[in-house]
């Protein structure tokens, strides 16, 4: 994994513990909700990032997931439905030294905030986005969401939903995201490591987290998260490693006529697809992303893509510095008196 970090986020304040990141507010999710684990992993990993609490800001939209900032003892802003990316962008632009985290849900990011979401990714602010995907609208008590499977029966779709779902990873890649990953609420270790990688990536880091809503969509991801089925239904992406999965890594994924195919001949590693998360070209990442739309293929978990590109806030800062160098620091007196003027005695 490439290490950064050229941004001004001050590093190196040690001695914080996860307790330091716990706010005094009671956590109010339903017992058993996957959000608890994501909160716990975030609190646990924060001290390892080495930044002081005062330089961290969590910004969320609206939804169960978006309550998150209240529970972190950092700066936080629980904003309005779908708009967290815009507020986070303004914040990061105005103060690039802050470590900015967007917390969002599948409805928040992909329905009402879909437009902001794609534009955030293409601008590549150095912001981390954690999308809690529970394939349902939790807070409004269980309507289908833009990631719900077609035909899903919910309160608002008693005869089954008509819409085919977004694949958030494909969407993010199409929007030009420079860091795209997927993790699981029920795999704490993996989740922590991905959060840390996301932080270390300079540019917008997007993590789709499969999150169980045990009230309105219980078990939506169990085949990928539970012991009995996980190994056969997921493939963990490791940079430079062939794609193998199964309890004993006995299965691999190879290309057949531009289509992924499961093979059991894993000894012949030349045949298997080898992951390259640093590829500038998004072909492989797109291909892997689409595997989760194929029922016969395992869902890839891990980092799909991680590439370096300029960040909006740095380019803006450079433009400002350049303008100052070219024209000199702005002088208000001169500005007001610019152009054709005349004096009345």
């Amino acid at each position, binding site marked *: 994994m490439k290490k950064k970090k050229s941004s001004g986020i001050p590093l190196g304040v040690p001695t914080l513990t996860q307790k330091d990141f716990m*706010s005094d*507010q009671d956590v109010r999710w339903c017992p058993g909700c996957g959000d608890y684990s994501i909160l716990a992993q975030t609190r646990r990993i924060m001290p390892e990032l080495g930044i*002081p*609490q*005062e*330089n961290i*800001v969590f*910004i969320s939209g*609206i939804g169960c997931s978006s309550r998150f*900032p*209240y529970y*972190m*003892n*950092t*700066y*936080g*802003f*629980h*904003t*309005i439905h779908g*708009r967290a*990316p*815009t*507020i*986070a*962008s*303004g*914040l*990061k*632009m*105005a*103060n690039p*030294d*802050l470590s900015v985290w967007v917390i969002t849900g599948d409805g928040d990011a992909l329905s009402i905030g879909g*437009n*902001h979401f794609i*534009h955030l990714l293409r601008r590549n602010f150095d912001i981390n986005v954690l999308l809690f995907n529970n394939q349902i609208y939790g807070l409004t008590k269980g309507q289908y969401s833009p990631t719900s499977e077609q035909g899903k029966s919910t309160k608002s779709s008693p005869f089954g939903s008509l819409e085919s779902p977004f694949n958030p990873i494909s969407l993010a890649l199409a929007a030009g995201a420079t860091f795209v990953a997927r993790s699981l609420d029920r795999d704490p270790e993996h989740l922590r490591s991905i959060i840390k990688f996301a932080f270390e990536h300079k540019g917008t880091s997007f993590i789709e987290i499969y999150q169980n809503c045990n009230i309105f969509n219980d078990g939506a991801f169990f085949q990928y998260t539970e012991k009995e089925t996980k190994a056969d239904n997921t493939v963990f992406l490791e940079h430079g490693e062939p794609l193998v999965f199964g309890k004993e890594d006995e299965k691999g994924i190879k290309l057949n006529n531009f289509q992924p195919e499961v093979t059991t001949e894993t000894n012949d590693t030349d045949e298997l697809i080898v992951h390259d998360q640093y590829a500038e070209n998004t072909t492989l990442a797109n291909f892997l992303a689409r595997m989760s739309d194929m029922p016969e293929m395992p869902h890839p978990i891990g980092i799909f893509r991680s590439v370096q590109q300029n960040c909006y806030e740095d380019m803006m800062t450079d*433009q*400002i510095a*350049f*303008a*100052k160098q*070219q*024209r*000199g*620091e*702005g002088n*208000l*007196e001169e*500005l*007001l*008196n*610019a*152009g*054709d*003027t*005349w*004096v*009345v*005695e």
Partner: protein
Amino acid sequence: MRKQVEQIQAATVLFAGDSGDGSQTIGTQMTETSAIVGNDVATLPDYPAEIKAPAGSLAGVSGFQLHFSSETIHTPGDSCDVLVAMNPAALKVNIHKLKDNGILIVNSDNFARKNLRLAGYADNPLEDDTLTKYQVFPVELTTLTRRALEDTDLELSKRDLCKNFFALGMILWLYNRPMDYTIRWVKTKFSTKNPHLIEPNILALRAGNTYCEATEQFAISYEVKPAEFTPGKYRNIAGNTSTVLGLVAASHQSGLQLVYGSYPITPASDILHGLANYRNFGIVTMQMEDEIAAVGVAIGAAFSGSLGVTGSSGPGLALKSEAINLAMIAELPLVVCNIQRAGPSTGMPTKTEQADLLQMFYGRNGESPVPILAACRPTDCFDTVYEACRIAVKYRTPVIFLSELYIALGAEPWLIPNVEDLPKIEPNFQTDVDGFEPYLRDPDTLARPWAKPGTPGLEHRIGGLEKSDITGNVSYDAENHEKMVNIRAEKVKRIATEIPTTEIYGAQEGDLLVLGWGGTFGVIRTVVETKLEEGCAIGHVHLRYLNPFPSDLGEVLKRFKQVLIPELNTGHLRQLVRSEYLIDAIGVNKVQGQPFHVYELESKISKYL
């Protein structure tokens, strides 16, 4: 032989043509020169809705009206002394604005059958008797411009584009104005990208000037002496530029970085364009994906401790309302500029109106008090938007700054302020950790602390859920909610304790008070001046602060037998004043996308005197 020069007090000139004919350019140049030679000026550009409507069509006519005077003036003039019509369509659209016996200059080269037909003329008006009440000067502008540029290297097709400068040369002659300022402007304008256009435009300008001097067509020219101005240094300024400078000044004086989020929309885009040039002032402009994102970045910037500003027009304001409400409950400074245009919906984007006032008051869910300030003329945009920034920062609240197309695009001379005289804007960031509570208020202003991320020990969470008094924690407590609603309202009300009391122009009590806001200032003042000269007991109050109203307004209104409220809407301020002060204010209303004419308002006002 020297031609005769006649002294006149004022003149109104209207340049009109196809949108590609450059009427705006020469209108602006004539304005600059008139202002620099010392006249008071007021302008009214009138753009077509389409960028490129079919050439020669009525829909494609673009106009620029300029009023200049040796006396103080407040409006671009009801009717014109001179109309320059570059084609039949421009003539058709504007001829009714020309005074009887007014000067009509037409480009006779454009009066061929096709253009006549496009303008809906069955016969050539230059050849029948339809124009007999005017002084008609048919001039072969195209032919003469081509002739003047014969010796240049400019491609033939481009030569015709210089004919507006020929026309300008004529008008400069007609009013005895120097060409120097225009020549200097042409040189700077084209120096970097199109130096080959400098000479041809200057040649055309000079040719137009000489044409009038040399031919017998024009016997008389006119002179308008300088007006009396308060001593000082002046420049000519349009409302949107004035808004831009006001924002830059507020950022500079407060020491807060300006972050301006916007999405292009007529007539607010010029503010984005203007600010985008001032990176050397540390100004960040962000052209976002929509108006919601634009206000979002401004709120994010405000949270970080910057001066967050967003700007749009009515349709954009509709989109921003949820986010403005967020800034309101989060109690963050935010300035929202609404450069109004004619609605509803997309309405008439290039026309003026004042019909967003109630939207600004009430267009948000829940109890959502937001201070509202309106500029009344181009130069006033500077002071008003500056004041909006000051209030936003001091009271930690979104503030709406209202302007409107008429003053945003109109221009007038501006007495350049001294930087030292600008009011102080003090961010007063919270840094003290002891006793910090996110919603603990300043006892005077009720403002909460502005504790920016990055400050150690002040980590806190804000948001759109109801806040508990003092701690700012989420609260569903019934009593607390009511308390917070009242506090937020009271905070806005308290602004009235520090704003200037009502200034009445003219009679301090008496028969009629004319109460206005926004861009109707000029017309109202002009009419009230006339009526005062006639000896009427009439006064004029023009409100900059619409929320809250000045604390003495109710008392002032009661000093007059009647209160008349002219507005370019169906009666928004009237409704507010009636409900607030229980007085039977009378409305004068116009919703045609056009400002009031002086004569219109005068006849309405006369009825009540």
